[in-house]
């Protein structure tokens, strides 16, 4: 099976007007050759190279980690620990996979480990006020329907989405986050999660199905996301 990526295949953007792939910026940001150079320098002991890799990836790694872990502070810990692991193990990194997938493997493993440790401690929404999660209400855009009676605030929707994510088993959550947030290909996800590509497809399919069931009222609507 080969990837259908390429100019001949119209992206879903042409169907629904919404981008489904990572932005060009994201793709550019994980330019493998540049990573290889930085990795080589970091292996030689360059702290600047490590920092460059950190600057390049930490926010995106955080986005995936927070998707798995729920609590921003836990995700911060995971990203921090991941880069410490990167530093410690970069000498053993052979470059068989890209730095990018290697880093995400570390992040996902740490995040899933932490989820298992904390499973009984925290339920999303129980201990974190929405205000803390979503910030100042005044700063948040609203998703507004044409019909004002169906207007829903973005943070309320965010909360529903979070609940739906949290209801997923972690192996489903991981795959949907890597795809929808990080825009990874099936191949990359298979590498990160160390499962066959077919498993990735199946997990992604079921994860989306479950999310769609949970969020059906919102997915069916004509709500517009206003930035």
């Amino acid at each position: 099976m080969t990837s259908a990526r390429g100019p001949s295949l119209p992206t879903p953007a042409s169907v629904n007007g919404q981008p489904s792939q990572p932005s060009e910026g994201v793709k550019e940001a994980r330019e493998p050759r540049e990573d290889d150079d930085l990795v080589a320098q970091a292996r030689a002991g360059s702290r600047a190279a490590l920092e460059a890799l950190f600057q390049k990836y930490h926010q995106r790694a955080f986005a995936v980690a927070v998707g798995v872990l729920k609590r921003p502070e836990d995700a911060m810990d995971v990203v921090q620990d991941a880069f410490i692991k990167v530093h410690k193990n970069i000498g053993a990194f052979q470059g068989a996979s890209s730095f990018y997938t290697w880093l995400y493997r570390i992040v996902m493993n740490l995040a899933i480990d932490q989820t298992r440790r904390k499973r009984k401690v925290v339920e999303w929404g129980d201990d974190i006020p929405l205000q803390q999660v979503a910030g100042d209400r005044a700063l948040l855009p609203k998703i507004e329907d044409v019909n004002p009676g169906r207007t829903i605030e973005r943070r309320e929707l965010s909360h529903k989405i979070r609940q739906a994510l949290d209801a997923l088993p972690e192996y489903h959550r991981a795959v949907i986050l890597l795809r929808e947030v990080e825009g990874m290909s099936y191949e990359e996800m298979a590498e990160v999660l160390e499962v066959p590509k077919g498993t990735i497809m199946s997990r992604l399919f079921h994860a989306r199905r479950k999310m769609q069931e949970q969020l059906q009222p919102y997915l069916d609507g004509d709500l517009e996301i206003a930035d």
Partner: protein
Amino acid sequence: MDIEHLSPEVLQRYFDTELTAQEQQRLPELQAHLAACADCTAQLAQLARLHDFVAMAVKDSSQHVDFGSMFANIERALVNDSDSDSGKSAQAPSILIKPSSAVGAVSAAKPLHPKLRRLSNAVPALGAVALAAAALLMVYRGDPPQNGSDESYEVTADGHSEIVEVDFGSNAGTVFDISLSDGSSSPVVWIDDDDQDDNQDDHGNANANANANQE
């Protein structure tokens, strides 16, 4: 030529631009169907919407996160780890002692007797003592003055010193009194990590004792 509805799996792969080689050969048919089929297009639109929803929720969870100090924390951890590798603890413990006078001397002296190292289970913990006093000296654990294998060291404070606070840092520990041969007692701050042997663990974290003598 019209074709049947796209299966959910094919729709997913189309959406993800991950069509198989076979499916890609049928791409014109698939596109023609999508152009004419409201149901399949609606399903694609739902996938796109779900994508936006998940991205939005994660973005909202990431708002107001300050990454400013994260790399500094990483560097600090690496430095501490490096220290740990060379036989120091990851986070230095500190002992706060209130001396008898504002200029009371606190000094590191000879290492404690090794036998004291095993007393940690024998102990009445020294209760929390005085709170902040006007003259407090912070004594940070440093290298032992004599470079023996035992990293314990003694801290002697002039006057009626008392331990105000012990911060064990990343170590485990306890505070207790021992009776000396002259009938007096001496508090011992016992700093160690669990699962260590007498001297050093595998990571080079060393046990350390500090003894703050009282007159």
